[in-house]
Structure formats: structure tokens, C-alpha cells
């Protein structure tokens, strides 16, 4: 029986985080839609990173305590649908190991995987095969069979990985959309990465990681600009490079760099060492390593500026701007409050003007975490709070908040910004939560949503052949129009949306769309549709030239 200890489990988890982080972009690129939303890898990676931070805080090597922290951390940090499912996976994983403290056997692992799989199936209302769910289930089944014949954790894990890889490869057979797009399921691939990380954590370089787990925690996700950092950032230069040479000693490098920063990751062998560190002295770091060998692939990012750029573009800080939002409740208690997710500054202002109490910036590629939403809900001065996710990939996280908050929380499952705006039209702060949920839900579909963005890769969608960089128009989440210019696609898309009952067309233009062009489109549409009132607003959202509503 080759069981493993808690410290090895830590190492497995850290490696899983590192592998997933490494593979993030590749997982992102597996998005079925060629829209620049490909966020499954980012979401899963951020969720796992949040979980690992929780794991770091555990001051013992008891297995059940580590996995409980993993479950708790991933639940709070869950971003996007894939992140939420992953958090449920870890929740089940932890449940399967509740009684395990000092040593985990292959049978324990198999049971944890089985429990994890069951939990993910329970978490989704309509389980779809060919996804992360299938991959988890196949892995669990193979693990159980393997544990019968040989109790070694490595043996069980290898069997699970083999089955998971096969399930990922076969995912297009279950899901025609994957086949059409020529990709495998992104969430399934992400889970496979995690399993592969587990294996590396067992037979990789255990000593290296076990000795100083806190320092090797992979958290370069900060440089994504998604983590909000307030005030001045300490260790603001994210510094990454390779050291090439002979007889390199990763331990020696690590020991010497440790005082210079944080979030350090030093891995490699005698010939190549990869260094990642957040530091205020990138020059000293380079100087030190440059003396040991040749430096290569040097990348230094100022996270503070990235963060400010992000803040400027997406406006995290405007909530303090009381003058601009006089209608923001100044501590006055409301019957029912509202938290809305909005992908741009202009859209946030519109939501505030409609009576939303707190806007969480996000949507599309920047799915807010369950914790972001929870914090927003807690900050609203009301005992009952409605969340408007305004994006299909945020609905799941929003629902998680219902379990976590001490308040009465309801979610109106708005799948787009226009649906959220329409739902707000029916919001009555003095009516009870249940009334508002019913009425808002009932009316949210009265509006048609159009979105215009560009294709991140070539693909085929139904009868449409799409090349990379083509402009694509989507209605209610489906690709409807492809073209070369934004204005042309906008016209054709809106033609498919407007009918004789339509009376209002609203254009919310994005941060990459010139205001003059939006104004010109507004003029053209006003003439083209005399029976409709046309409105144009600066939405400020990234990636999407226009978000359009027709009602």
C-alpha cells in the first residue's frame, strides 16, 4: 500500500495549480464560440488559486483539514460556470476524505473522486455529457476499478488520468458544437490538467515543494489584472524569466531570491530554471540570476499600472463618486436591494441610475467570483438582495451566494445586459423580494439581445463560415451574422431583431468603438426604422463593439 501524506497532498494541489495556470490559455482557446470570451481556463485557474490560498493557511498536514480548506476556498473564489463546477468537485472530494487524516490510500482517493463526481452532477440542474462532469465521472470509475487491483495512489491516479484523457478526447462525440468547432471540451480539459498536476506533485520534486509550500504557491493570476488591489501595491513587478546554464541549483536560487519578493516560483533542473517572482527589485533579481547563467524569455510587468489601467477602463473606484450618483442610497435602509454585474463603466452608470445599489464590474471574460458577489451583497443596506448576473456565465456563481449569505438573496437569471436593464424596469424596492423576483423574471425576456464582437479563430457555425478576425453578430447568444465591418454587421443583425412590434432600439457601444461611428449608426437606424425610438449610450464594455437591445 503506497499511501501518501498530507504534505504530499499539498504538493499535488500546488502542482495542479501550476499546471492549470500554465495551460490556461490553451484551455481558454477551446471555447466553442469563436468570441473573445474564452474564459474557462482563466476561471478554473483563478478558482483553484483562490482555493490554494486557503490551503496555505492550514497549519497542519492533516488531510481532511487540507481538503476542507480546498473546498471552502474554491467555493468563495469560484468564477464562471466552470469555476463553480470545479468548486463543487472539490467539495465532494473533501467530503470523501472527511475521515482521512494522516495518510490517504488509493482507495481513499477513488472514493473522493467518486464523491466529487456525484457532487458535480447534483450541482447542475441538467447535466450534459461530454463536459467536465463526464470527465470527472469516467476518472472516478477508472480510479475505483484500479483501487481494487492495486492500492497505490499513483496507480489509481494514473488510471484516472488515462480515463479522463479519453473522456476529453471523446467529448466532441457527445457535443456536436464541439465537433463543429473542432475542439474538445474546455472544462474537461481543465480537470484533466488538474489530475496531471496531482501526479506530478507525487512523483515530481516532492522535497522541493514540501519544504516550502507557501512560497511555491502559484499565484501569478494577479498579473491578469482581475484581482483588485487597493492602494499601493507592494512587490509590484511581476518578473518572469528562464535561466539557462550548467549545474544550476534551483534550491540555491530560491533561497537567495526569497527575501526579494513574494509569490515566488522557482522550478527546473540543472540546465533550465524557470523563475517567477513579484518584487520591487527586478534588477537585483536579474543581476543575481544573470551571474549563474544566460537569461532568456524575460518578462517584467508592472502590476500596479496594469491594475490602474484596468481600474481606469473598467472603473472600480467610481462608487465613491457621490456627486455623479446622487441616487446611490447613502446608508438608508431599503426593503430590497440590488447587485448587478456590468462589463463597462457606462453600463454600470446606467444600472446605478436605474436604482441598483452596487455594481460588480465584470461579465464576459472577467467573471466575478462568488466572493466578489457575496461581498457586494453584504455591503448593500438591505436584508433582502437581488443579484442580476447579466451574463450566462455568472448565473451559477450568483446562485452560490444564496447559500453563503446571511441575507435573503434572490437571483434573476438575466443572461445579458439588456435583460438586466429590462428586469430593473420592474423593480420595486418597497415590494417584497418574492414579488420582485417573480415580476422581474417574468419580464426579462421582453427584450432581444444583440452583441457584436470579433472572431478569435476560424470556425463554422451552422451555415456560416467564419474566419479569424471576422466581425460577428450574435442574437440571444447565437451567431447570426458574419461580416467585415462593424457597421455592416450591426445593420444586418438589427434587421434580424426588429419586427413590427418593436418600438425601442438601444445601442451600448464598447470601449473600442468610436463615439462618432456609434452616433452615425444611430442616425442611420433612426431613419431606417421610423416606427422605433433609437437610443445610443456609451457602455464602455471591452471586446464587444456593441451590445444592442430591441424591444
Amino acid at each position, binding site marked *: 500500500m503506497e499511501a501518501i501524506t498530507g504534505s504530499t497532498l499539498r504538493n499535488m494541489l500546488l502542482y495542479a495549480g501550476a499546471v492549470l495556470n500554465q495551460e490556461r490559455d490553451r484551455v481558454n482557446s477551446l471555447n466553442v464560440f469563436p468570441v473573445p470570451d474564452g474564459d474557462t481556463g482563466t476561471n478554473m485557474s483563478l478558482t483553484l488559486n483562490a482555493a490554494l490560498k486557503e490551503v496555505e493557511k492550514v497549519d497542519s498536514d492533516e488531510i481532511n483539514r487540507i481538503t476542507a480548506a480546498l473546498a471552502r476556498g474554491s467555493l468563495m473564489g469560484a468564477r464562471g460556470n466552470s469555476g463553480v463546477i470545479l468548486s463543487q468537485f472539490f467539495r465532494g472530494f473533501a467530503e470523501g476524505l472527511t475521515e482521512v487524516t494522516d495518510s490517504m490510500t488509493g482507495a481513499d482517493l477513488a472514493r473522493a473522486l467518486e464523491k466529487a463526481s456525484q457532487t458535480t452532477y447534483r450541482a447542475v440542474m441538467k447535466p450534459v455529457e461530454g463536459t467536465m462532469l463526464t470527465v470527472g465521472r469516467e476518472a472516478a470509475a477508472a480510479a475505483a476499478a484500479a483501487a481494487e487491483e492495486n492500492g497505490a495512489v499513483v496507480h489509481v491516479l494514473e488510471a484516472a488520468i488515462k480515463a479522463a484523457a479519453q473522456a476529453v478526447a471523446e467529448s466532441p462525440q457527445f457535443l456536436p458544437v464541439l465537433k463543429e468547432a473542432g475542439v474538445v471540451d474546455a472544462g474537461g480539459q481543465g480537470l484533466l490538467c488538474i489530475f496531471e498536476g496531482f501526479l506530478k506533485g507525487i512523483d515530481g520534486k516532492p522535497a522541493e515543494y514540501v519544504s516550502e509550500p507557501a512560497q511555491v504557491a502559484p499565484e501569478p493570476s494577479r498579473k491578469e489584472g482581475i484581482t483588485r488591489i487597493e492602494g499601493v501595491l507592494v512587490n509590484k513587478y511581476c518578473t518572469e524569466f528562464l535561466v539557462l546554464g550548467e549545474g544550476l541549483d534551483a534550491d540555491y536560487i530560491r533561497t537567495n531570491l526569497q527575501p526579494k519578493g513574494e509569490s515566488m516560483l522557482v522550478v527546473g533542473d540543472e540546465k533550465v530554471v524557470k523563475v517567477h517572482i513579484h518584487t520591487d527589485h527586478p534588477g537585483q533579481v536579474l543581476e543575481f540570476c544573470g551571474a549563474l547563467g544566460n537569461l532568456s524569455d524575460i518578462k517584467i510587468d508592472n502590476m500596479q499600472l496594469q491594475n490602474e489601467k484596468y481600474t481606469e477602463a473598467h472603473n472600480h473606484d467610481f462608487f465613491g463618486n457621490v456627486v455623479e450618483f446622487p*441616487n446611490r442610497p447613502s446608508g438608508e435602509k431599503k426593503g430590497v436591494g440590488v447587485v448587478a454585474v456590468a462589463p463597462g463603466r457606462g453600463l454600470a*452608470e*446606467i444600472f446605478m*441610475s*436605474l*436604482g441598483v445599489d452596487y455594481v460588480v464590474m465584470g461579465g464576459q471574460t472577467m467573471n466575478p467570483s462568488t466572493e466578489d458577489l457575496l461581498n457586494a451583497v453584504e455591503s448593500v443596506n438591505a436584508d433582502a438582495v437581488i443579484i442580476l448576473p447579466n451574463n450566462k456565465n455568472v448565473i451559477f456563481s450568483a446562485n452560490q451566494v444564496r447559500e453563503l449569505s446571511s441575507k435573503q438573496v434572490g437571483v434573476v437569471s438575466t443572461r445579458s445586459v439588456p435583460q438586466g*436593464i*429590462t428586469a*430593473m*424596469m*420592474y423593480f420595486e*424596492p*418597497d415590494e417584497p423580494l418574492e414579488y420582485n423576483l417573480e415580476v422581474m423574471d417574468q419580464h426579462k425576456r421582453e427584450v432581444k439581445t444583440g452583441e457584436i464582437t470579433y472572431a478569435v479563430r476560424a470556425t463554422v457555425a451552422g451555415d456560416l463560415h467564419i474566419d479569424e478576425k471576422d466581425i460577428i453578430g450574435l442574437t440571444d447568444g447565437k451567431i447570426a451574422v458574419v461580416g467585415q465591418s462593424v457597421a455592416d454587421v450591426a445593420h444586418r443583425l438589427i434587421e434580424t431583431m426588429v419586427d413590427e412590434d418593436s*418600438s*425601442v432600439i*438601444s445601442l451600448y457601444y464598447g470601449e473600442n468603438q468610436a463615439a462618432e461611428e456609434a452616433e452615425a449608426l444611430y442616425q442611420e437606424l433612426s431613419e431606417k426604422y421610423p416606427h422605433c*425610438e433609437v*437610443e445610443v*449610450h456609451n457602455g464602455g464594455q471591452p471586446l464587444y463593439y456593441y451590445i444592442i437591445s430591441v*424591444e
Partner: protein
Amino acid sequence: MARIHVVTDSGSDLPQAVRDELGIHVVPLSIQFGDDIYRDGVDLSVSDFYARLEGDVMPSTCQPSPADFQQKYLEIAEPGDTVISVHLSSRLSGTYQSAVIASNMVAEDGIKVVAVDTKSASIGIGLVAVAAAQGVKAGLSLDEIMARVNYAIEHMHVFFVVDTLEYLRRNGRIGNAQALLGTLLNIKPILTLQDGVVSPLEKARGKAKAVKRLQELAAEVKAKYPDRELAVGLTHAMVPTEAQVLAEALQRDLGMRENVIIGFIGPTIGVHVGKGTMALLMHPKL
């Protein structure tokens, strides 16, 4: 023989033809633009008023004085007569208060004045005045007439759509309507009067939707009183075409060609709601 007279104020927005036909007297409120003071309907026309409303000077209204009412009561009534004096919601204007004071003043002249707080505005007051005047015309007793008047007040349904909440806001008549937000988008608030105070009812995206919603709300009222004849008033602030389209739709939907009164929203109400407003008021008849 003692007679019963009906008096209202210029907030009632009753068309001249209706007033003439039923013999309804009107006491004007005054409208003040800076130092210029006008009497509504006497020396200020509706179109002149809205032209000036767009200007820089923000107008205000002033209730008639008790003396204005006293003068009107003495002018129309003989000792022994009764005056039913129906007015703007006492929570929106002091007009009713002036009428009450004037009623005490003319009591010593042998004139009985029944001052009525309609808790309404615009044609809502007008419809109450019409109910009273029709009772007079039918030769009903004061008690019978007052039963109709009170029934109309209690069962009045008020819906109005404004182009902007700005006028209500700056005149402090918005009540809890400040809860209605959405100035960034083209949102048309549908408002009502609750206990005589402006109160938000719904919101609609764009005027067309708001007007369509008015139609639906009217149909809901009709459905509520399936066996009753409805009295309906529709007033508008300088949007005659939209009002005409809505009136035709109502007459078609509700089958009440005869009794839709269409009027202008005059300066008294216009100061508070602004151009583009449409108001639909209705009550079942007793």
C-alpha cells in the same frame, strides 16, 4: 327656487364646450413667471404658456385667494342656493383650503358651499365636476349628487405619463416618485395619484410603450367593472396627435365613444408635469 351650482378650478382641464354645456364655473389659479403674474385661462393661453415654460424662468402656481372664491360664489349664487366646489388634491395645492375659507365667508350671505377635495388633478377634478353637474341637470337632490361625487372620487383611476420627471421634481410635487430613476435611459415613468399624492406606478422604455401600457391599464379598469359605464377623461400637454390616437384606441377597445372627454393640460397642471404629458383618468359611474 333654490339652485345648485358647480364650481371648479383651472386645474380641472375641462374643455370649454363641456363647461358651457353643463354650466360649470371655473376659478383660475395664477401662474407666475418671475414678476409676471397671469390668471390661467384668462390672460394666459395654453400655447403661450408652454412656449414660456421652455424658457429660463421657472414658473410657479398660486392658489386662488379665499376672496377670489367668495367673489365667484356671490356672483353665481343667490341666498338659499348651494354651491358644490370641487378642487385639486389638498395635498398638491392650497386651492381647496381657500374654498373652505370662502365657504365660511359666504355662509352669512345665505349661500351654502360644499367644498370637495377630489384628491385628484387635471381631468380627474373635471370628471368629478361633470358628475356633479350631470346630477344637477338630472334634478337630483344634494345628497344624491354628493353620493355620486364621492363615489367618483373613491373610484377614480389615475394614470399619467410624463416626458421627464424634472417638472415634478423641481416643484416638489413628486412625493415618493423620487424612487423613480433612470434618467440616463429614455424611460417614461407611468405615475398615479395615491391619496392625492404623485406616486410611481410603472416604467416603460420609450413613449410608444408607455402609451401602449396606458391602453392596457384602461382595459384592466374596464375589466374590473364589467357591468358599469365608465367616465373617461384624457388630457395632454401639447401632444394632440398622440392623444387622439390613444383616445381612438380606447374608444375602440372599451366601446365608449360617447364619454371620453379630451382636454388640454392647462398651465396650472402643466407647470408641474411639462410638455408631452398624457393623463388618463377614469371612474365607474354610480
